[in-house]
């Protein structure tokens, strides 16, 4: 990356020039001192959660943070839980699917589904952790709108979804190398080879 020394027009905050160090790129500063009013996750109880826990046992952890409910679900339970939420609990609208990368962790990725139920007017999040290279079952058969959302997760993080009808990149061009929203991908980094071949210029920076 010869262009790495060029900085963007606005002054970059610290930590910006360390794309090679995966762990250091993320938290640039030590964590803030605890604020007095800082909310902490508290257990989330509801009839739905009681039922799910009764059926699936300890694989589900249900929490509330800042008034928002979410459940952390074991990877192995994901296909079933999503199906149950759609068919039995009326979560008929898949708002968003996204991921978060924690390179220091053994299970590097958090994958998050944001779901909404029109009949219940309720929004929840389902979260699971997977290691790098692991795949997830596609939820396109459950919500057809998951199609592009899953493609974006693949494009940006390299997480593949099994059974997706068209698992390819969506925002970046086919043939691009790397997945930009991983923490080890620098902010100025790009696929120079792709740029040179396809755009006929030395660099896009």
């Amino acid at each position: 990356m010869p262009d790495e020394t060029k900085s963007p027009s606005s002054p970059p905050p610290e930590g910006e020039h360390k794309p090679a160090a995966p762990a250091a790129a993320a938290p640039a500063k030590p964590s803030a001192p605890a604020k007095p009013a800082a909310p902490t996750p508290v257990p989330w109880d509801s009839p739905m959660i009681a039922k799910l826990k009764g059926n699936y046992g300890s694989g589900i952890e249900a929490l509330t943070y800042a008034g928002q409910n979410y459940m952390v679900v074991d990877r192995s339970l994901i296909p079933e839980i999503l199906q149950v939420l759609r068919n039995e609990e009326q979560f008929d609208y898949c708002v968003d699917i996204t991921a978060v990368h924690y390179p220091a962790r053994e299970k590097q990725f958090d994958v998050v589904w944001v779901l909404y139920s029109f009949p219940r007017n309720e929004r929840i999040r389902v979260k699971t952790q997977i290691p790098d290279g692991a795949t997830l079952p596609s939820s396109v058969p459950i919500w057809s709108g998951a199609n592009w959302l899953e493609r974006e997760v693949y494009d940006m993080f390299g997480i593949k979804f099994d059974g997706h009808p068209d698992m390819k990149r969506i925002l970046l061009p086919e043939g691009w190398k790397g997945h930009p929203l991983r923490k080890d991908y620098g902010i100025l980094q790009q696929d120079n080879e792709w740029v040179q071949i396809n755009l006929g210029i030395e660099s896009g920076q």
Partner: protein
Amino acid sequence: MTDPNTTLSPLELESHDKTFLDANELVINMGPQHPATHGVLRVILRLDGEKVLGLECVIGYLHRGVEKIGEHRTYTMFNPYVDRMDYVAAVSNGLGYCETVEKLLNVEAPPRAQHVRVILTELNRIASHQLWLGTHALDIGAITPLFYTFRDREEILKIYEKYCGARLTTHAFRIGGLQYETYTGFEKEVKNFLTFFRPKIDEYEELLTTNRIWVERTKNVGTISAHDCIALGVTGPVLRASGVKWDLRKAQPYANYKNFDFEIPTGQNGDTYDRYLVRMAEMRQSVRIIQQAVDALPEGPIMAKVPKVMKPAAGEVYHSIEAPKGELGYFIVSDGSTQPYRVRVRPPSFVNLQALDVMCRGQLVADVIAVIGTLDIVLGEVDR
């Protein structure tokens, strides 16, 4: 790749005749440099004559990596970037972002700031719908509405310019409230605009609602059912035109929308014409909301107590608002530092654009233009 429903089977040709007569499928490329795709959208159409058998969208030409930038800027520094996503509704983008960070910080904007936010956001909804109407009508062949809507949109932009100095990428809000107190005469100018604008909606309707060409080009074009909308995650006026009475301002009120009286307009047929009617009615409702907000504009501080260096406690929050185009959501993960660990934007245009294939199947090529227009996409938001 032949579809049994569209292939001309009864012709029973001899093999030597099968040169081009059976090859009735045509693949056509539209865009990315096409005036009616509202930006750099590329659509690959599979046609049988004039009939659309299916299509595929190729997007990403405007990808700037907004989410990646967010991880390398402080919470305050990232704020102006969101204005560049849906650049015709920059204020809505800013509102969604500010409210999400406020949730993380556990602060709430003071009442006066909330009122001004509602006024500016609803003005923005009108401006966004005006731009949609002008360009959508232009795509279909009606040139006049464009001049009418741009003439009137100017009045909104003037208010923005006086308020924060920008006309397009209006960086109006700050985390915790507002940066600027309203200028002298703000209330009067907003009220003047409302009086000026009410008859203008009638004027637009006069041009189009019963216009024979408009009706022919939009009725039963790009129909989508409520069931398909929900399955695809389509929100905003498109969902409402299919008959689902759902608006985040009512379903899960944010800012202080619960204090205002307004209706959720819906359609029945889910076609392009109904979506047009829904958006026209929404402009009237926005006028109603602004009127109530400006009449009851309270005095008081415009900024909550927020630290200069923002370090929200570690945690995750998803918050969404009803942007002019649908549900605009932000999912922000904080690790306790000054920069977000992850910012995810759930853009309404991106998700709504997925429905283009469903809406265009069986329609004519010319209707694809009408359907792209009626979806009201902004490529800056689709590609981010």
